[in-house]
């Protein structure tokens, strides 16, 4: 590598200065917005965009997924809501939010009474250990939620 020969020509002080600059550049990159992780506040604003002013009530929704998945790149989950799924009383949508992902939105599922059962399974990406939220919007306008904490040892968003 040509870098090594260049370094030999530098004094010890120059090397230390260069290393310092490198660290500054690196920390500057880490602060750049596109590298930032989502925070629970980002998830809150997304949640507000999805469900409006409704206040989510704990319960009715169940989010089943491994507490410590093998790999964050593909984490299996099943979300279901206790509902008769009739014309008068059914689940309209389920939203999945991952608070610690670069973008907190995972998926929105829109049901109809023809769904028969408010349940769906899939696989999501998780970048780091975090809380995953499931929000269920009912046909009467109420919103139910559940939160599940997941520990991720191998992140799943590449890079």
């Amino acid at each position, binding site marked *: 590598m040509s870098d090594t020969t260049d370094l030999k020509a530098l004094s010890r002080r120059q090397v230390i200065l260069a290393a310092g600059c490198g660290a500054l550049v690196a920390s500057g990159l880490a602060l750049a917005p596109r590298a930032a992780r989502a925070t629970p506040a980002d998830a809150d604003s997304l949640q507000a965009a999805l469900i409006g002013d409704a206040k989510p009530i704990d319960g009715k929704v169940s989010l089943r997924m491994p507490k410590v998945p093998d790999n964050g790149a593909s984490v299996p989950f099943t979300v279901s809501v206790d509902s008769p799924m009739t014309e008068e009383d059914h689940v309209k949508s389920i939203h999945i939010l991952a608070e610690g992902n670069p973008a907190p939105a995972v998926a929105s599922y829109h049901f109809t009474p023809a769904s028969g059962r408010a349940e769906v*399974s899939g696989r999501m990406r998780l970048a780091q250990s975090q809380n995953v939220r499931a929000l269920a919007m009912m046909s009467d306008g109420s919103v139910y939620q559940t939160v599940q904490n997941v520990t991720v040892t191998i992140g799943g968003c590449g890079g």
Partner: protein
Amino acid sequence: MSNDTIKTRVPATARKGEVIEIKTTIGHDMETGQRQNASGQTIPRRIINKFVCTYNGKEVFVTDWYPGIAANPYMAFFLRAEESGTIEMAWHDDDGSVYTTSSEITVS
């Protein structure tokens, strides 16, 4: 447009009113738009952003997907079998392509 990587499992027959499970997968990178290639350029986002299931022409289950959905998306969901007919599924790609498949179901 058809896609070789689509796999679906839809029961061929059902009793009227029975709730059936449908399993689907499609081969797709679901590129998040967060990754960089070896020379440091960001790889542009390209995911399947929408899935639509219709039952005899009526939309019964629609989903919006974001980059948080894993590659080669698998999904299982339910439908109430009310009449014989066609269950059609469509995956909408960021690049505008729509991949479709359909299955016949006999309801007795």
